[in-house]
């Protein structure tokens, strides 16, 4: 196809290049360049499994065109922390039993990070509203709510030097 372009995406602090047509979504593009941690659940913005941070905002990558993300700072769940050094949100999800099948978790962890960035001391309403775009079929959300609160507390404690 003729309307293809090579673009540079800045993902988890690294510049990565790929050649994509204009209609390629950020979800498809990220997976094409190897970011399999970004999950496809519906391709319609209904489920949130594909959520990534774009310049700090949680967005559905399936509703974002790859070309429009050029120049932006993109963060996937792997950009938050790794197995050897989990991010407090990831740690709280793992220890709190908030991940079951885990397919929604890359998107939910990103949404949780965005909630806590905006509300360091999130209320229950903040958490529910912040997660309302992320579907989970396994957990009933109870442990997800608990994990977000726990992570926020850990991050606050870390900031105040405790």
């Amino acid at each position, binding site marked *: 196809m003729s309307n293809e372009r090579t673009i540079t995406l800045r993902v988890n602090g690294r510049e990565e290049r790929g050649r994509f047509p204009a209609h390629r979504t950020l979800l498809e593009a990220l997976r094409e360049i190897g970011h399999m941690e970004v999950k496809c659940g519906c391709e319609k913005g209904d489920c949130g499994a594909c959520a990534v941070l774009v310049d700090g905002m949680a967005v559905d990558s399936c509703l974002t065109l790859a070309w429009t993300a050029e120049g932006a700072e993109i963060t996937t769940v792997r950009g938050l922390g790794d197995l050897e050094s989990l991010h407090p949100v*990831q740690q709280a*999800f793992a220890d709190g039993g908030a991940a079951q099948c885990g397919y929604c978790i890359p998107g939910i962890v990103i949404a949780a990070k965005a909630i806590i960035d905006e509300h360091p001391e999130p209320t229950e309403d903040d958490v529910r509203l912040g997660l309302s775009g992320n579907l989970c079929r396994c957990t009933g959300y109870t442990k997800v709510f608990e994990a977000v609160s726990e992570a926020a507390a850990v991050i606050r404690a870390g900031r105040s030097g405790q």
Partner: protein
Amino acid sequence: MTGITSEAPSRPNVRFRQVGRPLTRTDAPGKVAGRTPYAGDYVMPDMLHMRVVRADVASARLVRLDVSRARALQGVACALTAADLPDRAVSTDIPGQVGRKRLDTGQQILVRERVRYFGEPLALIAAETRDVADHALELVEAELEPIPGVYDPVEAMQPGAPIVTEPDNIVAERRIRKGDVEAGFAEADVIVENTFRTPFQEHAFLEPEVGLAWVDENDVVNIRVSTQVIEHFRPIADAIGVPHNKVRIRGALVGGGFGGKEDLTVEIYLALLARRTGRPVRLEYTREDSFVGHGKRHPFVLTYRTGVTRDGRITALDVRMVADSGAYVFLSPYVLLYALVAAPGPYRVDNLDVFARAVATNNMFTSAFRGFGALQACAAYEQQMDEVAKAIGLDRMELRRRNFLKTGEPMSTGFVPPSAIWTDRCAERAWAALGEPTPARGPIRIGRGIGCYQQSYGRLTFLHDTSEAWVGVEMDGTVVVRSGVTDIGAGQVSALGQIAVEALGTTLDNVVVYNSDSAVTPLAGTTTATRALYMTGNAVKQAAEAVRARLVERAARAFGVAPDDVDMGFNEVFVAERPDRSMPLVELVRICGAEGIHRSELAMFRAPFTDFLDPETGQGQAHPDYAYGAHAVEVAVDVDTGEVEVLKSVAAHDVGQCINPAAVEGQIQGGAQNGQGYALSEEMLYEEGRLITPSFSEYLMPTAMDMPKVECIILESRSGVGPYGAKGIGEPAMTPVAPAIANAVADAIGVRVFEMPITPERIVRALKRRDGTGRLDSPA
């Protein structure tokens, strides 16, 4: 949020060091870090991308199917239709280990002449890129001549109805006759009859069906696929015409199952095209494909007629059930059997007549879904219990108390479940935990409801279920488990690890479980029917304890004590009464290695093997055992808008023995959500068999805005037939939720909606009917 009660009839048989603790699951770090590969995350060089071409009507004759334009498109490697395949059907049965199959359960791989349901596959396309495959899909020309269809199971039984399945659309018929129902009704003071309707339900796992297939150097078709059942390699091999040992299923951690990945999904399409093209092929369903591509929960129409005395004793029960089996048989006869056996619920009913039929229609085919027929029965019997209580003016909890089946009593099939029956104490605990009632205000009415249940765990015993596991200790003291079990998100694999390290005196971070490969992991059966922990847990325990016995025997010689005096834990081996006399586990393993003491074991666990239930009376053993418990809710209903909010949701289950309490809670809380959606909002709308709600913006699951925090009360009778007295919680978690909500709504507004989901529209309509206005557009 959680309380665990161990009121054990017997003490635990080991002093637990690993089992019973809420340990971080072995699969959790990889999942939260985004490091876990799911089946859709595997790619191969030179891989082709597939799409499935589907029929856009539900009942038709295929007049012409032309794929020539698709084939001619640059980048299309293959376009396959039924004309390119031998005329062979795929078995939709689960033969179990007896090797027998039901008759006439085949489904055509691709439509040959007749389209029986909306979305039935017509052709397969493989192309160099997904874009090309999408484009080719649009170039396929299908001429479909509509044939009158039938979309209601009751209509499908009428004379002259269009025939979907020869000769009369009835795909299964089951009966229980027990005691003297006529005499029972004669003895009754009051007879209560109601008809309840339950809907289709979509599994809505977040990971759509996906797989990757290739043919290896041994001419074996390898399929990496998201599935609950790796042992589908047999029907796949039969369908593509190769020996069973030429198909290998390699699973992956599954992104949700709930029964929706129990049947074959993408496997045969992948196998056909991998062989045809000689290249790796990948097929990932879109969400819309997923909505129309796998079987749904059976809608049921259930008529309950209950005879009861004034003091609340049930004297007779007559139940009529009709299940919509859709266009193909799949697991309908088994689902129907579960519903039949569950019909009276966890109650003692000595005079019982149940007649259940599954009927073919041109709707989407229906098959396994968490609860598997027993859930639909519960939706009816628990609503009926509230209606019976109302009819005789008795408290609904008291009516239940007076009729609960008790430990040691025979259930519907005459079988006496071997474990404790703790429905009573679960119900009391859940009900009490609702606490102070929330006050009503303005148009907001408050109501409460409870659902009690009986749900089997383990497969039908006439299927002769078995499960294998291999456990070994490495030279450095780490543990390896190999077992074919699939992990669909409930922590199946981690629980097996916990059991193995309990027996082998080490910790969960010291075990690796290899699972889900039909060629190299010992076959463990399916992750369905709440059987994985029961069956494979027992197999792992057997294998690990056999290894433990040999290690302990050697240690006893080293210590100069009897084997019974030796214990192991946290990587140490010691004399139980003298912990100072110890050696590191790794040292013991090294000695065993040097002396050729066998450090591994392959074990097979066998469930009870029985014959089929008596075909006339339905009496006999159907399952290994049953789980019991209750779910209670408080709801707020806005009588102006019909909106329902679930304020409190409390579950109390006797799980026998927790292996991992955090995982048990997770199952319960997820079941609460799954059941809440089923009761209130999840609606698959079909027009002439055509699904008009194939997305998550139309099919509404409870979100983070809709779910209350779910409180879990876990009771441990330690009486189950699973490892350490465990029962199962996968299906039980969901079964009682929807009727609890239905009962709460009826309690709140004083009128019952007899059809789920209980949508705002149905509530408003029921209120209008009760208020006698009759018209929906009249002022309230």
